């Protein structure tokens, strides 16, 4: 049951880490560099969730950290604080008291994490099996890409179209769902930094906590 939103998150993360992907089709544009094992990517995001029938979008902002070793932290700071951690053992929400609640576990979650790892290593295969990937235009240094789920793929029932654009880093991802809802995620301030992770992020991962 959690597969649907796993796809959404997978795609988000895939684009968030887009700089890590060597893209032949982007030969004329800025090329993202892979994240090494001893590096991590961090930046800020703005998520505008447009819901059909609701007047205004649900707007949130925050920062994210993506580590090849540990996983992804999605930390919302506005309008309410909240943390979601994606790692091999599952997806967890972490409240202000540090209480972790599992949102998803099991095989699909593992596949999802595997997908992130594949993306981090510059392998498009995990998304290619679910999406038809096509470049739109590349007249400027920015690249544009459309992902259309294959009709019989499990992503097909959850997603209608995904578009993304960026340069050396991904800048914006738009996810359009069959319900006519759409999420627009804008990334900013992305940098690749060497490990170790800052303590406040490192402690959010289960293996970081163990240490």
């Amino acid at each position, binding site marked *: *049951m*959690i*597969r*649907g*939103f*796993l796809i*959404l*998150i997978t795609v*988000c993360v895939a684009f968030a880490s887009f700089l890590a992907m060597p893209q032949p089709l982007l030969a004329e544009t800025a090329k993202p560099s892979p994240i090494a094992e001893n590096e991590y990517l961090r930046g800020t995001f703005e*998520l505008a*969730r447009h*819901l*059909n*029938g*609701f*007047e*205004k979008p*649900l707007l*949130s902002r925050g920062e994210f950290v993506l580590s090849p070793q540990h996983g992804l932290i*999605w930390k*919302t700071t506005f*309008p*309410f604080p*909240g943390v*979601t951690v*994606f790692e091999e053992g599952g*997806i967890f*929400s972490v*409240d202000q008291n540090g209480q972790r*609640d599992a*949102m*998803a576990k*099991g*095989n*699909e979650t*593992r*596949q999802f994490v*595997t997908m992130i790892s594949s993306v981090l290593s510059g392998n498009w295969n995990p998304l290619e099996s679910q999406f038809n990937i096509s470049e739109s235009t590349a007249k400027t240094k920015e690249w544009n890409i459309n992902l259309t789920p294959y009709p019989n793929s*499990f992503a097909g*029932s959850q997603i209608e179209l995904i578009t993304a654009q960026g340069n050396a880093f991904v800048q914006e991802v738009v996810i359009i*769902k069959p*319900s*006519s*809802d759409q999420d627009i*995620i804008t990334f900013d301030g992305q940098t690749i930094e060497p490990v170790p992770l800052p303590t406040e992020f490192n402690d959010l991962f289960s293996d970081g906590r163990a240490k």
Partner: protein
Amino acid sequence: MIRSAFVWTTCILVMAAFAVWQLATERTELDADFLSLIGQEQDQQQDEISDIDAVRTLLADSGRQAIIMLSHPDYDHLTDIARQLAETLNRIDGTASIMLPGDNADRFDNLRALYGPYANGLLSDADRDALKNGRGESLYQRTIQTLYSPASPFTSATLKQDPFQLMPDFLSGLGNKFGTGNDIVTINERSYLPIIVTLQANKYSGTAATSWVNGVNDALAEAHNSDPTLQTAKTGQVFFAVNEAENAKKDVQTIAVIATLGIAIMIGLTFFSPLPMIGAVLVVGSGLVAGAAALTILFDAIHAIALVFGATMIGISIDYALHYLVIPASSTPTSSRFGKIHKGLGLGLLTSVIGFSALALSPTILLVQIAVYSIAGLISAYCSVKFLLPLIPNRPVWKNSPVRIAHHWVMRLMMVLVLPRKIQLLVAIILTVALPISVISIPGHDDVRTLGQSDEELVSDARVISETLGLGGSPLFIRIDGPTVQQRLETSETVRNAIAPLVSAGKIGGVVALSDFVPSTALQEDNRRLVRDELYQAFSAPLSDVLQTPLQLPNLDAPYLLPDQAITSIPELTRFQTNTSDIMRLRDVSDISALNATLIAFENARLISPTVIISNQFADYRYWTYIALGVVLVIALLLAILRYGPGRGIRVFSAPAGAILFALIGGHIQGVPISFFTTMALFLVFAIGADYVLFLSEGNDIEHRDHTRLAVFLSLISSILAFGLLATSSVPLVSDIGTIIAIGLVGAWFLAFWMTETTKNTTDTGNTN
């Protein structure tokens, strides 16, 4: 004579054609499913479904499921192999569907559509507990977090139906109640993946099942050959059933070949001609044909067990043929050979028919079918002896036949043991009295688990799969009774709460019930009230601000989710209902005593173990067989007294009765459990024992005494070859039947001779010369 033979041959051919036509056109079905016939009693007047019906439904459902576990050190490679193997398995004839880990995920939308309109009344245990204990704010905080989390499954539509996002937790809770199972687990750097295969409804038993299992074994072997690091294990009723059936078949085939050869050699050594063998085959064959024809006329479906036992019973008709064949042509004109034996033969047939008629009075269709088959078969065999055997040229017993010589020496030895009539009578009375005492004293043992011999590898596989994935194992369930569906749902919810500590303590691996998918209306209403009072009234205003849309309080009078609606969307839910009963499916129960103790408090809920229920069913069958045996013994005693007078009558009667006694005691000493099947073997002992003693009693005049004795001796050897060899089988059920029959037949032969033979110093009336 020729005309009679022609008419009778025509009758046999018509019966054979009819039986073949009925079976070939499936007007009469041949049912090999063990579960399909048991429990289908003739007097099903009760409104409430019987436990055996519920068990049949449950096991038929479970019987269609097979679990294959793959393990490999490389997770990704394992999933690739699983996908390829699933495709191969899907191509095997008999496979209905295959489920790999995660395959159910695409049903999320269906569930969401089903539950969405009723979301306010569907709470997970944890959420309900939070609201009951005034922790509504934690749920509100969770709602806020979910709204802004990138891993949120909601859509605008579900948000309108369920603003506090309660349904995802309800669905997660539902998954937890199922427990682990359909997922990949990793232990010690090795991943284990379950493939759950469902067989087509008509393909999980009989030859179709054998073919399917062979296909699966080939596929697994091929996968293993392609990657030797791949390990496989499999479990499911179908694997055990096919394995045991194959073992039994192999044993019985070997024994049948030896027995047939033995009988052929014995007849050959006796007559030095194939003609008597042809005569014997004709007689037994006509019996089988008539039995099959009678069953196809009277029943829409014939069970395999009835066919096997019926055919075994008809096997005794070879005695009829031998009794006729040993009479030499030179002593009497051909036309009167039958006349010399017709009394003994007729009485033997009458006794057997009475015996099987008593069996037919039981309310059990299985026993009725066996009785009908046997009665029709024996009558037909009798007719064949009368009408067909006289047409076969007579071949006298060879003078120097080794069988005859052996018989001669055996008789000389036996004569030494013969005692005066008074002592014979005393012994006969003791045997007659001891029989019912033994029946009462020797306990029955009807546990079906002792009937087969499970393959060690399959048992090991089942254990490994159960320990690794929590799948498989022996099925147990709790039966919930109640006049209305809502009452049953409420009982089910109360039972679940009561056994929750056992689940937490690991004594029960998992429980799933209809009430998990569709809570009772009472619980839904209570949930809705809790949501309204503890969540909406306190937090709808701030949530409304966040969503920038007004929220409406839940309406307690709005419709609630009903089971019928859920079953339409989730057809599998029918697995939790059996007519007017609901069943709670249990998994991995390690403490049955604790579970039973918990259920004592519930009048309408009880633990059902299919093994126990089926064993009890067979205990009932054994009970009915004992009653039938008792009735026929009483009738036989009365007939014997009427025919031979009190003294001789009791002696004659004591031969089959004593044979049963010997078989009972001998079997008990040998450790043979007295089950329904061994009791049926006692029936056979009675029928053959009655034949022996009647043949000897009726053919005991000076002229034919030696021939009759030889005929009975030949019958004993043939029966020992046919049935006694079964005792050597590795399958407990087959071996038990063989042991009982072997002991019983030797006892019957000895007593038949001993009770009908006179000492040199006594007359038939027992007076001293």
